[in-house]
């Protein structure tokens, strides 16, 4: 990635700002997916912990359930993003349905 950036300073920022490089598209998606997985599973876990303390007498299972919920949601979002990305974007195109 860093190699493609040309030494001339004038051209590099113009390229960068316009849009990400195409070969790094998949990697970017992976990064975003992993971060969202971390955050959402963490959120789910924390909710699970709170529920277990408040309602379930400090049992362990609500924490696991929350973790599962968060992770599942993150995976689902990631999946949808992967699925939609390969095909060419249809922004600005009219879709004729049968």
């Amino acid at each position, binding site marked *: 990635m860093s*190699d493609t950036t*040309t030494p001339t300073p004038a*051209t590099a920022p113009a*390229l960068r700002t316009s849009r990400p*490089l*195409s*070969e790094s598209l*998949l990697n970017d998606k992976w990064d975003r997916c992993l971060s969202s997985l971390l955050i959402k599973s963490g959120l789910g876990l924390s909710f699970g912990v709170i529920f277990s303390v408040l309602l379930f007498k400090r049992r362990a299972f609500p924490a696991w359930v929350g973790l599962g919920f968060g992770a599942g949601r993150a*995976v689902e979002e990631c999946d949808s993003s992967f699925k939609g990305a*390969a095909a060419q974007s249809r922004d600005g195109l009219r879709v004729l349905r049968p």
Partner: protein
Amino acid sequence: MLRVTLSRSRILLARPAAARAQWLAPSRTAFQQRYFADRKTEETLVPGSQSLKQPYGGVPPVPGVAKSASSTVDTNTPAKNIPILPPKPEDLSDVSKQTLTPPTTVPTGTGTASVAPPAGPTNPPKKSRKMRKFLAYLLVLSALGYGGGVYYALVSDNWHDFFTEYVPFGEDAVGYFEERAFKKRSQGRPPALPRLHEQVRGEEKVRIPSNAGVSSRPAEKADLGGKGPHVSAVDDNVPKPKPAVEKGAAPVTGQEKKNQAPAKPEESSSSHKLLPKQDGKQESSPAATPSAKKEEPRPAAPAPAPAPVQTPLVDHINIENASEPVVQDVVKILNDLITVINADGAAGKYSSTIESAKDNLKKVIGDINTLKATEQKNAEDKIKQLHAEFDGAAKQLLQRHEDSIQNQEVRWKEEFEAEQKLIKEAYEQKLKTELDSVNKVYDQKLKNELLEQAIALRRDFTTSVQNQVETERGGRLSKLGELSSSVAELEKLTGEWNNVVDTNLQTQHLLVAVEAVRSTLENSTSPTPFIEELAALKEVASNDPVVSAAIASINPKAYQIGIPTYAQLIDRFRRVATEVRKAALLPENAGVASHVASFLLSKVMFRKEGLPVGDDVESVLARTEVLLEEGDLDGAAREMNGLGGWSKTLARDWLGECRKVLEVQQALDVIATEARLQSLLVD
């Protein structure tokens, strides 16, 4: 805890009141004590009244009993012994009656008040007095404040505005004081009369007549030319005697009215006119009637009549020409004396003296007359002399006047002649200048005509010369035209050759420019903009359609930013290839699981080399690499363009770069070909 307290309180409440009374009553009687837990009885007292307990001793009073006692008060017990309770509506009238007699006795109870307090209704007066005091203070303070406000409003303008705007009636008050101050200031003057006002209303209008006041009038000129007293020195005396005589007559009339009649005729100095009037007077004094010459016999005639015995009566004196008033007076006195003497009858005694007196008188009168005559004569002489003098003076004046007129005439004549001469000169000068100008104009006109003629002659000369030359040319100089045409042909030929050389030069320039662009592209190690070179190329091409089309086909980004070099493209392809390999095994519409699977499997896949046959991603990548190594950028791009799905998406940028480079290369090729074509087309 709470429950415990609640239960305790409940227990306390539940305990019967009777039992409490049982064990509380004696203690209360003993110590006059009351607990908070006790029910509050009718111990509430009106301040200043006695407690209810007192008349009943130690026993606590029953509410009912107390009430009955209070209700029965009006009839049985005297008002001073019973405690005063808040009056009931029905007892109000009675209570008010009772309050008129305040209690005087000292109460025997335990109340702290040693003296009987004033009855209930005594409080309202106190209150009202306080109220009245308060009201009075308030009134005084407000009045003072208001007064102060008004005064300050007269002093300060700001306060004036505030006061008049916000304080009720402040404006009227301040206005009243201001008006008073104004009146005081204008007291010296009489009180304002409604004079002006009435005038405005139209009553009592003062009318000034049109000819009132001072008016102009031409001064009365003493018209010396007209008739008047100044004309003659003689006439001046004529009108004067009349008023003098009248003045003289006035004292006469004052002295004696009876003698007025005889005096008047004498004034007229005509004896015959006197006669008829003196006839009327004869009745009283017949002696005065006879005329001057027959006076003596006539008075003598009547005189003997009254006194014939006595000596003849003395005649009354009568004097001619007694025009002088003094003389007349003297005559009158004498006549009076004569009449007295006559009346006395002593004529004989005084006749001689009277006669002498008469003679003397006559002499005196004669003297006076002569004096008068001489005086008159002198006066006339003087007048004549003055006349002569005046005439001489007038003549002198006239002479002088005539001299001056003559002088004036002479002077005027001289002036007139001088003026005439001047005018004549001026006219002659003007005439001369006019003549000069006319002459000049005429000369100029003549000159102009001459010039015109000269010009016309010259023109004729030139035309004739031209005609001559033309005729000469037609003959001898006609071969010059052929020469010039041949020279023009030669010039054309050389021009064509120049054209050929120019186009050659142009094509050379074009080639050079193309080579310059190519060299900059090849020599650069990093993408550099080559917009200047391209601009130079376009300039050299000079609107060659092919060149301009080729330049337009290049993506503007390519020459603005620059295109990557070949090495950079290969380098980038390697990185793209690794990424593409990761996504090589992805199915259509892949989810996370397939992505993960593809990522893992791509690690363990075998890599192909050379030019494998097949459409799979791995073989395409291998072929592309080989092509790139061979330098076939076009083929490599075609191979990569055959990919699909995620692989193509990942390789999109690289493909774009390749295309840009290829476009530039193509455009440069086209331009170089065009230049070559141009150079070939010249011959």
